[in-house]
């Protein structure tokens, strides 16, 4: 079942646990979310003063975001705001922490793993490696990264972009008095950790500093507010598309059908090939926001159906099965 819906979860009051897995001894962790099948997880890790580890690699893609403190990794020094994407099989240098540090540590493919090594695995896709300070070395951009977009008052820094899945890792802020009056959902899972500040969503209430969510696809969230502003670390697991609507009672299944209806309207050939094949909602799935969209002229045109006036005269066209 992958990761369950964890929203909202405020981790600040939860105690750290001793990390007793090879490569992590001398650190403590809290699980923010965990894939019960693969073991992929997002952790908040506290590296105690004096923590040391030899060079090594993981068999999972890893992402790290330093929340506070200083971590020495090989020849690099990672401070507050540092972000790193470490592809599976790529070795990183020895780690040492002088006075303690906290970081978000994400294993994207499997449970935490570490194998001592001073070289890369032969299959490691090392070109994907990234390591930079996101606070200092990445510019803020407007929130309208995708369309339909969020309202003015959201800024985004893209930290990592997967060209195949279009999954993104990013920092975002909401400005003071931010307001967006719509309900949103996505085809992708979405994750966020509030580094500082509080935002509010109509379903879940306040998400304060230390607030976290892992939200599977098609789950309603919003309207949105932030009284004093906030800054957060976010990720998606695939392409982010904002489906906005105003029905607070819609379910993920209804939202999924509505998303499929978008596909039916906007990418008709793909829809026909992937989903329809003449038997599965041949006139498009239900859309709770636009229940009669099937009769829209453009939609009918895209799907090779006659305009309403002609429909009553001509017999319906038989759809050929594509092979």
């Amino acid at each position: 079942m992958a990761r369950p819906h964890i929203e909202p979860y405020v981790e600040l009051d939860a105690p750290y646990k001793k990390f007793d897995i090879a490569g992590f001894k001398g650190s403590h962790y809290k699980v923010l979310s965990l894939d019960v099948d693969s073991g992929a997880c997002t952790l908040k890790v506290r590296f105690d003063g004096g923590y040391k580890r030899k060079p090594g690699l993981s068999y999972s893609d890893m992402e790290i975001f330093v929340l506070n403190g200083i971590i020495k990794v090989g020849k690099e020094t990672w401070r507050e705001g540092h972000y790193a994407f470490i592809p599976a099989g790529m070795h990183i240098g020895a780690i040492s922490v002088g006075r303690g540090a906290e970081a978000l540590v994400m294993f994207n493919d499997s449970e935490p793993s570490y194998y001592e090594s001073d070289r890369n695995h032969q299959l490691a896709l090392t070109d994907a490696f990234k390591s930079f300070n996101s606070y200092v070395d990445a510019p803020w951009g407007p929130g309208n990264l995708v369309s339909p977009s969020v309202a003015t008052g959201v800024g985004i820094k893209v930290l990592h972009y997967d060209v195949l899945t279009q999954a993104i890792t990013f920092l975002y802020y909401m400005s003071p008095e931010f307001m967006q009056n719509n309900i949103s959902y996505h085809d992708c899972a979405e994750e966020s950790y509030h580094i500082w500040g509080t935002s509010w969503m109509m379903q879940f209430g306040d998400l304060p500093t230390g607030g976290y969510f892992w939200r599977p696809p098609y789950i309603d969230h919003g309207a949105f507010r932030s009284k004093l502003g906030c800054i957060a670390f976010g990720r998606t697991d695939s392409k982010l598309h904002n489906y906005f609507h105003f029905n607070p009672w819609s379910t993920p299944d209804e939202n999924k059908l509505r998303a499929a209806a978008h596909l039916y309207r906007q990418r008709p050939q793909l829809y026909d090939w992937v989903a329809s094949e003449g038997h599965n909602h041949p006139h498009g799935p239900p859309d709770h926001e636009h229940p009669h969209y099937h009769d829209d002229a453009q939609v009918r045109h895209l799907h090779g159906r006659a305009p309403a006036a002609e429909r009553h005269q001509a017999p319906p066209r038989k759809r050929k099965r594509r092979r």
Partner: protein
Amino acid sequence: MAQRVQDKKPKRNKAARAWLEENIAEQKKRYQAIVDEQEALWPKRRKWYREFLKIIQTRGFNVDGDLLRKIPKAELPKEPKRKHRVVW
């Protein structure tokens, strides 16, 4: 098919299996606590929904970015009789 490093991962050892089991069990409890907490929020949420449906009729619904559309009363959704959930 291209080979991936992830496919070469050594089998989970006993410590990793124990770590997973322990944390999956804790996550189940955490999930249930969130569900309970969110159920208890229902009276406030009902009020928030009412305010939202009012705001989109007066100030407007954010269609895309700052583009607003005032929603006529006739278009407003009606609360269904089924049990409402926000955590899935």
